[in-house]
């Protein structure tokens, strides 16, 4: 799996695009849903673990807020994928 540093970089890039949305709620939703729709569940779980275990160090505010706001949608019940 991508290292946590890579995942943080990728998540922050997604957040940067949505940061400029004038409607903050739309930006948060866009950030969270992009991760939901394009990241393999293993990547999402690793990011969540980083937030839970390390407070999300290195993640931009918009990413942290997006993930906290949409935690349920982002991390559906464990899938028997791996």
């Amino acid at each position, binding site marked *: *799996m*991508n*290292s946590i540093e*890579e995942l943080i*970089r*990728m998540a922050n*890039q*997604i957040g*940067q*695009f949505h*940061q*400029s*949305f*004038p*409607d903050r709620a739309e930006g948060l939703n866009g950030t969270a849903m*992009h991760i*939901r*729709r*394009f*990241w*393999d*569940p*293993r*990547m999402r779980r690793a990011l969540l673990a980083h937030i839970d275990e390390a407070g999300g160090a290195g993640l931009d505010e918009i990413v942290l807020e997006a993930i906290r706001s949409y935690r349920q949608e982002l991390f*559906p019940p464990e*899938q*028997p*994928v*791996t």
Partner: protein
Amino acid sequence: MTAIHEIDYGTPAREGAQAVTLTIDGVPVTVPEGTSVMRAAITAGVGIPKLCATDSLEAFGSCRLCLVQIEGRRGFPASCTTPVEPGMKVTTQNQQIGKLRRGVMELYISDHPLDCLTCAANGDCELQDVAGEVGLREVRYGYEGANHLKAEKDTSNSYFTFDPSKCIVCSRCVRACEDIQGTFALTISGRGFDSVVSPGQLGTFMESECVSCGACVQACPTATLMENTVIEAGTPSHSVITTCGYCGVGCAFEAEMKGSEVVRMTPYKDGQANHGHSCVKGRFAWGYATHPDRITKPMIRHSISDPWREVSWEEAIGYAASEFKRIQAKYGRGAVGAISSSRCSNEETYLMQKLVRTAFGNNNIDTCARVCHSPTGYGLKQTLGESAGTQNFDSVRTADVIFVIGANPTDAHPVFASYMKRRIREGARLIVADPRRIDLVRSAHVEADYHLKLRPGTNVALLSSLAHVIVTEGLVQEAFVAERCDPASFEAWRAFVAKPENSPEAMEAVTGVSAADVRGAARLYATGGNAAIYYGLGVTEHSQGSTAVIGIANLAMATGNVGREGVGVNPLRGQNNVQGSCDMGSFPHELPGYRHVLDDTVRSSFESAWGISLDPEPGLRIPNMFAASIDGSFKGLYLEGEDIAQSDPNTQHVTAALTAMECIVVQDLFLNETAKFAHVFLPGSSFLEKNGTFTNAERRISRVRKVTEPPAGKEDWEITVMLANALGYPMHYDHPSEIMDEIARLTPTFTGVSYERIDELGSIQWPCNDASPEGTPTMHIDQFVRGKGRFLITEYVPTAEKVNRKYPLILTTGRILSQYNVGAQTRRTHNVDWHEEDRLEIHPHDAEERGIREGDWVGIVSRAGETTQRATITERVQPGVVYTTFHHPESGANVITTENSDWATNCPEYKVTAVQVMPVFRSSEWQNRFKQFTEEQLALLEQRITS
């Protein structure tokens, strides 16, 4: 000439609204206004002898063989240059005309060798045919006078021979070079009897500007310009129409054959993408298909340090399946995946993703569009509602302003570039945004009004500053936006781009482009009439690749340049089937037709058709697969047609990922760089050896037809079917047409597509369904696919790849005309004559500072790695920027590129790498390791245990 004779009408068709009726030899005929008498006659079935006329070129009127008599007119006008008129009465043949024609023919033949029986064009020569038609029986002038019979042949070009002794100076070659190709490499030197066809200034073809497109060879009515394959093998006897396997233009060709051997590839006159034109790759570079490097037996090995063992198809497939099952049992269902290629057909990529989603039971399928046009799919879907370009190629013929950004069409899409250049010669204006001075900026009869020579990595800043001018100078097409676009998103975007920080003056420091040029270009784009944007990988392969695509769509919507001919947003796809492979659901988050795996309704339609539950979660993308391999959670990979060890960025990271896997199955033509890390090799089929379809950059689905048998006995789709069955998921198709039928049943934009329908129409541009039964040349005509066009804010975010004192130059990478992608095909042809190695282009200023001279070996060092190449010193690149290509594996272009990638799609940032360049005297350590590894692997191939 072509051996497989099509009717040559002598002059091009006209599309005049008025019909004109005339009589030719007593036969009434009605043709569009503007048609020549010659074309009208041939349309009516009345042949007229001709030599300088052919229907791919405008009439020239030089050979004097096509003369006719017209009632009420004096003399004998040339039928090729005389337009029809109502009531005209034409006589094409009588004693007087016959005598005149024989006289002209006598003069031609008096300076032409009489070696017809041993001539390469025997039976395929218009001069020979016309001599017969006019009844030439003697040549009264003898052959003792001055003549050209001993003129020396020019064999400098590996693909064709120029024999001036056979030239009749009809100028067809010169006009083809000018009018069709637009290169202007040929001319007629001298006057009168001394007139000769001359490449450049009386040099050879190889020394001239000739790009070897072959248009001159095709236009030549004699054996003066003749393909070497025909000289060697003789004239072909039959042909099959198929589609080129190279770039995203998707040219139609007649594969001309003798028995089962291809003798010549001739661009098909009725080809709807190429209209009878081609480039050096498609026309000539097909010899790789019979190259001795082809692997023609399945092979397996347990470890990459073992010699290969040739085995039966059953054993190879059985071994691959058992390994994938073992890995899934040990590491989990998600520990295996597949990567398909844009070189594969639609049917093959469809089956690959189907195998992964059914037999593997996950969504770990990706395709090489990940590393090229995935941002196009994302950006255009978000804004316009469909992941595809909006136009057909012919649309450029009505463009008034052509804006080329991050694309180099003369090298990468040469046939389309010839259309573009023709339109520019007709008066269209041109804006080029590119860090390099590409050929389009200034070449024969083409000059850009604006060359926005931006710094690599600043596309988004440039696009926002162009938008700033359009918004703040009142150039928005308000009525279009009000009717067609989402108002809230437009207002937010308008406010954003109007900010002072997005002005050309503010962005000048970022982009390096003068504010005056940006303002001028923006005004031209917005007010110059039909404005069309064409873009390529110079837009997508950036950390903000998707943002730039969105920025392009924003510009087109704001100026009303979408939804009709002559305008639009046109991604120039790199490989033959980039569009098709994406359409076929080759991304890990999408099922065919760009529908997300999260969508329960879509997923259930596939579940019901395929009889299996599908994973509702997106799978791993290519870079994620590499990362997962290195961390030990991804262990098995099936690749078809894709050479990731050469084409993907940060080679050392890729090869580390490949080395960490337990089973790599490569299905390809050659033991490519990736196959050197493989455990199973499945010999694939070239485009000449299989049936299927390719979808080009204009969404055009064209047939690929088998012209010869695959040397290993299997078409690629059959191999994937065998593997799926061995994995336990039953697949059965008797022909790829059945695969297309399944695609059509499951994909709303393909509902009306079938092989039968493609054969009827020639090709089909999707969407093709009940609403558009003959396909859709132009999209978004009445409304956008998503309903209202959506503007998105495109804030410029500088790349994380920074120059500094250690890495002070920016490397950007690209392609050249004669080579294709990783070069696996073109390196095995005579195309190496034009490009035998990748070189580093460096500006004279940067070279001098470093003591680098032309041809010196230089080390190129980045944060990812180091390689060496020879230097080409050129002002094509700007100071501070260097450039190279990636066609040769040993040059290691991707050893230097990094894993930085587009925020939305992970498309690698090939176009921006901070490097240092210094003279060196030895290869890099990577190159030494590469050389050793390659020698070991080739030895293991040589030592293979044969069955």
